[in-house]
């Protein structure tokens, strides 16, 4: 194992070690579970995370699949949360995330940026956009699985059942409104409000100008407000 990996990530998987069992991903700065994200701007990956990612990428480039799967563990929740908000379909989002990870693995040697998270996000956004383009229409009934158990927020004893229900109701109305704005506006708002990227990072990620990103975000918010004008009482604290 590369000493750099051990230095930045003591729990890195040793080559040849048995694969990590599917389970809750250890909480890191770059992979905070979205279900628990309650702050406006989630913690951003710092230099330590970037160094860890670069070390894992180098290890994966040497043929260590476990190192790449470690990156998958770190970012799969974040990527799924992003794509499911963009495509409004759980299965399609899962397909987009799987395609994104396969594409990232295939093109790992092309990764040059200093932020693996941004690179991966861009790939996942492209995958989600391709899926939407293939559909050529917005889903008439976004998130048909509203009553699915997968939507139930994690149990929070301190929050109480009433607050949990409010959170869930808010999420439903937000998701329904988000499904009705344009894909570009939706992606920009998710990247800014949920993932915490700044305008310039979003511009680099989506390949448009800074002004276009700002315009998409502001017009998208305005559209959301018009769509949610009857339900604003639910959204206010």
């Amino acid at each position: 194992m590369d000493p750099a990996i051990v230095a930045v990530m003591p729990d890195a998987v040793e080559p040849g070690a048995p694969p990590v069992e599917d389970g809750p991903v250890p909480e890191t700065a770059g992979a905070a579970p979205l279900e628990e994200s309650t702050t406006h701007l989630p913690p951003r990956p710092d230099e330590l995370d970037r160094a860890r990612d670069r070390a894992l990428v180098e290890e994966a480039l040497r043929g260590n699949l476990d190192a790449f799967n470690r990156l998958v563990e770190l970012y799969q929740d974040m990527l799924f949360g992003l794509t499911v908000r963009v495509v409004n379909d759980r299965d399609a989002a899962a397909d987009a995330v799987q395609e994104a990870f396969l594409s990232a693995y295939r093109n790992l040697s092309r990764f040059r940026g200093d932020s693996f998270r941004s690179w991966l996000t861009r790939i996942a956004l492209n995958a989600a956009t391709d899926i939407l383009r293939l559909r050529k229409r917005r889903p008439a009934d976004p998130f048909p699985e509203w009553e699915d158990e997968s939507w139930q927020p994690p149990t929070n004893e301190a929050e109480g059942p009433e607050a949990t229900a409010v959170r869930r109701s808010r999420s439903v109305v937000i998701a329904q409104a988000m499904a009705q704005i344009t894909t570009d506006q939706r992606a920009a708002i998710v990247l800014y409000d949920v993932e915490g990227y700044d305008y310039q990072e979003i511009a680099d990620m989506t390949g448009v100008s800074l002004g276009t990103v700002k315009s998409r975000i502001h017009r998208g918010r305005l559209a959301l407000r018009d769509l949610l004008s009857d339900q604003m009482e639910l959204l206010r604290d």
Partner: protein
Amino acid sequence: MTGEPIRPNEHDLHERLLVVRFATDDELDAAEAARARGLLASCPECAALANDIKAISRATAASLTPSRPRDFRLTPDQAAAARGSRIRRWLGGLTSPGMGSLRPLAGAAVALGLLLVVAAGGIPGFPGTATTRDTAGSAAVSATEEATISTPAEIEGPSNASPAATTAAAATAAAAASVPPPQPVAQGTTMPSVATDAGLPARTPRAQPGNEKTPQEPDASGQSYGEASGSPSEPPKVGLAAGGATDQPTGAPAAARPTSAPVLAPAPAPTTPVNQPQGGSPLALFGLLLGIVGLAVLVLTFVARRATKDPLIR
């Protein structure tokens, strides 16, 4: 009918986007910020809009998403399929960022190679190109220079054979200049009949720098070569040998004139070959090789990019 004019909602005329930007702490200049504050203070609907935008932004950030339906870690089979064949991996390596300078280098190699080939006189060994013509022309010049150089050496001797040598060398030079490209020219021989046999007017040797220089240079005996060859005591063999116009314009066709080489004394064999080999100079060969290699690399990288292009990496 009240007769009262219907007043448009003033809020509809307000800059809603400005309010949205102000509410989300976007970078506004001082004038814009002052205008936004004025709107919020004077228009309750603008103030409500700002509050709603903040609430929506908070709710969006805190919104729930369904849990992922499966684990996305790659299995060894998936990884092997994603890696592809060895050729694909090799081609993928060519398009990696580490090889980013490969294409500009290849392009530069092609350009440099072409430049070298052109500078060296064309593609070597390619009949009918500037290479062979220039080779013949340069051979003519070199032969003439050789004649002018070798003549003083012979002048040092007691023999007065220098005019003949000069004549033969000049004739060789002119012949080399008029040789059609595909035909090799024998060393030390003159070929004036190429032009004269066809009945065409021969080219003047005065166009050759060596021939322009030669008449002005006196030899050791105080007699210039031009004078020696054009003196009344001798027939104008130099001009004829050169296959061009003579100092004595006769107006006769060149084919009717006697050729100089068989008439004159045999010229000494030049120390260097009159004609360069038609294989071209090493510089041209190097340029050609460089261009071919650069072109091959360019083609290879193009194929690699096409073969390994991923629609999600854009």
